[in-house]
């Protein structure tokens, strides 16, 4: 319900903002009549506001044409909804009820931390800059790297009653127009009531929320965002969050690190292959051990087989229990070290890994070999550069372990097929997630495994014809 502007007074404005203690309402007398200055002190640069108001007053006294319009101010017809939204966003409003106008001053005060390197995405060589909690500063970090006119920045209001905005960025000449349209539609259809975090926004933007695999890449590194924009992808930013979402991505994007491109091609290729090997180990190694010990002892050469039998025979329970016990123990150590303050975190790792690890072996609860297997698995999973993919990989090894217990190698191969089919069915912003395997493109397959010399960009494959013409 809109109030007539003439009814506005100090009490009315106070009621609109529930008498908040940081709300400032000042009555001013100008030649054009009585007015009110209204803002939140916590969001506004008060010195700059005072300067701007004084400038405007002198312009109005001189009866200049468009006296209220400057580089940082606009004159609007009085609108109560707009007034609430602007003040909540950190603007200053100058309201003249008798003239039925409001002047909006963009004098917000931004405080942001310095753009330090993100803790989870450190690199050896290259830029050490990271995003911060200010949208403007984050956009600046991208723009300064991409001084091109077709870098498009668009802002979408999320929900109807909500006062939060999301921004998406793309390079017009490189991004697929269908994907840009899809991204814009998804952002517009977010029915949120309050400001969202990047994780919640991800739920709305992903094609299959219940999949264990992330379908958007999270990063806090501007150089990584720029690299992806140059491949025709779209970056999603949200105010107050240093995390940027990137889509459409492929499964293999999560195994690439900015270090690959900063290092020499051969070195970059070696580490990329190492990470893919780490993926296979992290998923399959515990299941392989369980399958061998439970079902296929005969595959081991005799001398190794004897040693394994000796250690396993003394254990009071089946290998799956032993493996689950240790795997969950490793997860506990990880979770505990994350939640503890930095000086204590590593101590937990040492206590958990060395002291308790040694004690459980001596107590005969687990075998030495299982400790080695679980340790290699844990290390392998941590070489994956994306924390989201890393967590997904750690979770999917459990069904592999269960299938290996039930059916040995056959169970593992069935699980591998199911996982592969799931990955083939996934999409990121309706683009094939498992590209270049689907749609199969042998010429692009090399890019997955090799870090080729950076002579030209490799844009994301455009929309796959099957998705348009065939069954969805």
């Amino acid at each position, binding site marked *: 319900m809109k109030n007539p502007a003439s009814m506005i007074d100090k009490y009315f404005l106070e009621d609109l903002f529930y008498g908040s203690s940081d709300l400032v309402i000042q009555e001013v007398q100008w030649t054009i009549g009585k007015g009110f200055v209204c803002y939140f002190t916590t969001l506004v640069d008060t010195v700059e506001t005072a300067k701007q108001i004084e400038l405007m007053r002198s312009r109005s006294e001189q009866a200049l044409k468009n006296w209220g319009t400057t580089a940082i101010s606009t004159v609007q017809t009085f609108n109560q909804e707009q007034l609430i939204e602007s003040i909540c966003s950190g603007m200053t409003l100058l309201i003249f009820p008798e003239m039925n106008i409001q002047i909006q001053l963009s004098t917000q005060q931004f405080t942001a931390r310095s753009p330090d390197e993100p803790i989870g995405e450190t690199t050896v060589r290259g830029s050490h800059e990271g995003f911060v909690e200010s949208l403007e500063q984050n956009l600046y970090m991208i723009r300064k790297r991409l001084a091109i006119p077709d870098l498009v920045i668009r802002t979408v209001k999320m929900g109807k009653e909500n006062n939060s905005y999301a921004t998406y960025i793309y390079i017009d000449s490189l991004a697929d127009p269908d994907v840009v349209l899809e991204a814009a539609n998804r952002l517009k259809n977010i029915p949120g009531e309050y400001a969202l975090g990047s994780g919640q926004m991800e739920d709305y933007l992903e094609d299959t929320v219940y999949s264990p695999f992330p379908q958007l890449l999270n990063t806090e590194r501007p150089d990584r965002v720029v690299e992806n924009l140059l491949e025709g992808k779209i970056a999603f930013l949200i105010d107050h969050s240093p995390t940027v979402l990137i889509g459409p991505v492929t499964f293999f994007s999560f195994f690439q690190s900015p270090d690959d491109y900063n290092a020499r091609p051969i070195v970059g290729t070696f580490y990329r292959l190492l990470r893919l090997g780490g993926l296979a180990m992290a998923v399959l190694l515990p299941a392989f051990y369980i399958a061998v010990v439970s079902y296929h002892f005969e595959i081991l050469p005799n001398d190794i087989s004897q040693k394994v039998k000796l250690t396993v025979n003394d254990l009071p329970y089946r290998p799956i229990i032993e493996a689950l016990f240790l795997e969950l123990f490793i997860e506990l150590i990880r979770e505990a070290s994350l939640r503890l303050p930095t000086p204590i975190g590593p101590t937990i790792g040492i206590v958990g890994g060395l002291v308790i690890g040694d004690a459980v072996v001596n107590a005969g609860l687990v075998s030495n070999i299982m400790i080695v297997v679980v340790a290699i698995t844990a290390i392998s999973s941590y070489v994956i550069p994306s924390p989201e993919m890393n967590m997904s990989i750690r979770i999917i090894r459990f069904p592999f372990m269960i299938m290996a217990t039930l059916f040995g190698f056959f169970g593992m191969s069935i699980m591998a097929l*199911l996982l592969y089919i799931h990955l083939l069915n996934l999409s990121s912003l309706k683009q094939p997630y498992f590209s270049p395997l689907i749609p199969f493109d042998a010429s692009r397959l090399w890019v997955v495994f090799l870090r080729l010399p950076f002579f030209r960009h490799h844009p994301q494959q455009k929309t*796959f014809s099957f998705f348009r013409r065939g069954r969805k």
Partner: protein
Amino acid sequence: MMMFELSKTQFFCILFFIQTGGVFISFQHYLIQDAKQNSWLVFLVIALMQYLLFLLFEKTYHALRVPTFIRWVFKIYWLLVIISGLSFIIYLLSLWTLPDTPIIVTTAIILIVSYYANYGKVTAVLNIWTIAIPVVIFIVITWLLAVPHLDWYRMAPQMDFNVVKMARAFLVATAPMIGLEFYLFLRPFVKEVRSLAGWPLFSYQMSWTFFYLATILVNQLFFGIEEIKTIPQPTLYMMKSLTLSFIERADLFYMIAWIIWSIVTVILYIFFVVMTWPADNESKRRRQNIVIHLFLLAVIGFFVSKERNEWIREIVNYLHLAIGIVLPIILILLKKGLNKWIKDSSS
């Protein structure tokens, strides 16, 4: 019929996995038993025959029109191929790795994978064969491990042979051709409008020939003719008898690799059975998918024994000559004849 597009590479790769997944570890025993040292020569003749058939198919695939009744004939034939292949996989599994697991459980597990694949996107099924690429590499490497143990003198052809046995050998050697009719069914979906008769078809045919030739030669040169008569799955036994320093039973890995490959083939076959089923909407197609999988679950168990499996495989081998080769040729000739007759009568 469902609409989709295939690239040249996808088309030939799908064809390769359809033609290989079913029989590549099973037919050598029978072929070498009948053709003896001439087995590889017999196979080369069959390979040439297949190449000529493909050339004919490439020239005439536009003319192929399959009436509804004939479509059903193909569907029933493909279901028989699936039953023979799947029952063989489960028979070998129960023999080599899972002797205590009930057959119905093993069958259900494989069919769940197939159902999940066919329930999803068309693109997922049409690219499922990509999982078998590392499997192909692994299998070729395992053959290379056997190379130092091969006796090459066993390759020399034999001039005296029994005509009846040789005729039977030719019949057995056509087993790897099973699935060649898919060339006609899939070719219209290929984006490439130009003829594939040149290098693309030749390279496909060479890959197929070398693959099967290697499977025959490796077995023949490793075991010898007399020995192979007592070994029903020579490739698996060869892997078992290889002594490697890092692994004792290479046959188990080989078998798992072959199972993945064969499941991919089964998934593709079931997809094409459903695809050619007349269905006007997605829910009907999903229902048909469920019906086919339940039907297979019910019947597979019956064929999981040595005798019954051999019986159905023999039937499939004969049917494949009639339905896979002769029937498409008749359909093409009929259509050509009809066109000519219409042209003559109108002029």
